[in-house]
């Protein structure tokens, strides 16, 4: 099996964009290709993520369109759609293609527009996001995407005593991290009081417990070890990727608040990388809502079960803490353009492991983890990346 490396990264600022999806994707893809030092002839395939362009903008069959738009006409393209885990699944498949020797250099990325700039207001977007819940048994109840995580989080609060104040601390932390990231949708800090005074979206979540409706794109170039040596980009090694799903709908899961798919995907990624949770130096996790970050840090083994809220409140998951979580600001502050989110996590891991993360750098980081979740807490992809010069990290 060949080793896969990330050799180039690019992403747009997350926030509000009026560009078309192909134009916006190019703003991430071309910098990624340039960062890798890859010419169009070097790229053998496009693995592309876009979750909701059909519903939001009336655009479908986008992969060949964006490939042509960025100078890759003719390469095999495939579009991935796994709700919010869309482009991390594209990444997984690209890594597998490189590991299998099927392709040497692959462009992976995603793009999405979800802000009111699309012409869709909050009610319309809330309905479109709810399309990731079960159509027959959940949507008729009026369950929304915040509602899905609200049900999981309320159960976690009941079982473990997690408090609204602890949830607010997750938002405060990620807004602080986002203030250090000039590509973040929310670049300003917030306070626990501001979070706890906000209007309720889906109890226990208030406005600042929720990620924003963002537009944006992110892209990475994945290459085999040999191809990476021929390119000029600074490589980061893909140590392992895990991918699992859980039962849909929510009510049928064996124990909804444990997010079993994340546990299964993490086990697979850790095994592939030959590491344990303790070896992870920092993580980008899917904090679409503050409660989602609490569940994720526990499922990944970064904190003890039931202690996710307390760990955030104690600063253990902040920059400078024992296991920094979402140094980019996460979905909560950096933003969440659905189909671009997973690729953007890989961008952050790569920049951190290259030592290019400026003010938000995690000191001495050799192992980074990305956790990207889609839909009804069903699809989960966990990726572990290692600094190229880390050697045999913490085995």
């Amino acid at each position: 099996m060949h080793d896969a490396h990330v050799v180039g990264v690019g992403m747009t600022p997350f926030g509000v964009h009026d560009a078309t999806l192909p134009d916006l994707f190019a703003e991430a893809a071309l910098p990624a290709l340039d960062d890798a030092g890859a010419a169009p002839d070097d790229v053998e395939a496009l693995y592309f993520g876009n979750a909701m362009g059909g519903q939001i903008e009336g655009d479908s069959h986008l992969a060949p369109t964006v490939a042509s738009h960025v100078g890759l006409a003719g390469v095999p393209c495939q579009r991935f759609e796994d709700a919010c885990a869309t482009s991390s699944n594209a990444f997984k498949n690209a890594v597998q293609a490189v590991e299998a020797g099927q392709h040497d250099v692959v462009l992976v990325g995603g793009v999405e527009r979800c802000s009111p700039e699309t012409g869709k207001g909050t009610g319309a977007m809330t309905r479109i996001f709810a399309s990731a819940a079960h159509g027959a048994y959940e949507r008729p109840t009026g369950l929304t995407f915040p509602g899905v995580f609200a049900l999981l989080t309320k159960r976690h609060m009941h079982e473990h005593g997690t408090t609204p104040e602890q949830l607010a601390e997750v938002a405060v932390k990620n807004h602080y991290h986002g203030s250090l990231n000039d590509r973040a949708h929310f670049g300003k800090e917030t306070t626990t009081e501001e979070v706890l005074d906000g209007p309720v979206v889906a109890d226990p979540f208030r406005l600042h417990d929720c990620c924003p409706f963002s537009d944006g794109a992110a892209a990475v170039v994945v290459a085999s070890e040999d191809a990476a040596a021929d390119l000029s980009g600074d490589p980061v090694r893909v140590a392992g990727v895990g991918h699992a799903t859980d039962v849909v709908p929510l009510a049928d899961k064996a124990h909804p608040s444990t997010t079993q798919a994340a546990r299964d995907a993490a086990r697979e990624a850790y095994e592939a990388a030959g590491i344990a949770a303790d070896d992870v130096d920092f993580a980008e996790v899917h904090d679409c809502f503050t409660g989602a970050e609490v569940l994720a840090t526990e499922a990944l083994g970064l904190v003890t079960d039931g202690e996710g809220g307390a760990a955030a409140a104690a600063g253990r998951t902040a920059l400078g803490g024992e296991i920094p979580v979402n140094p980019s600001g996460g979905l909560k502050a950096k933003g969440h353009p659905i189909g671009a989110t997973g690729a953007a996590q890989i961008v952050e891991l790569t920049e951190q492991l290259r030592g290019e993360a400026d003010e938000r750098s995690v000191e001495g980081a050799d192992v980074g983890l990305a956790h990207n979740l889609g839909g009804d807490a069903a699809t989960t992809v966990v990726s572990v990346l290692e600094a190229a010069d880390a050697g045999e990290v913490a085995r």
Partner: protein
Amino acid sequence: MSVDDYAEDDRLTTGGWRDALDDGLLLGQECRDCGHVTGAPKAACARCGSRALDTVRLPEEGTVYSVTRIEVAPEGFDAPYHVAMVALDDGRVTARLDGEADIGETVTFTGAASTPEGPAPRFG
């Protein structure tokens, strides 16, 4: 009508489940092989893959497993309203809740809520 009248070729489909709900019956499936009970009928058991599924009437009294008050609703829904996961013996359903109830409180099936997305079980 009997429970089996809502099944097609012995299997409860989404259509049959909705028809029963509109008639005031809360149906589900019980797996003959592993015993898993679901309020969201499927073509095969979500736990073990078995196709040996009995159409059953679910208990009409249960306890709130988790609950949220939705204040920002999708188009076509009027907020605020409560959505709960309700535990019914061996199964769970996601349902609309009339009024407030905390986790652990007993609630009773009161029929179907009619929504733009179809009928939903209602508990109160």
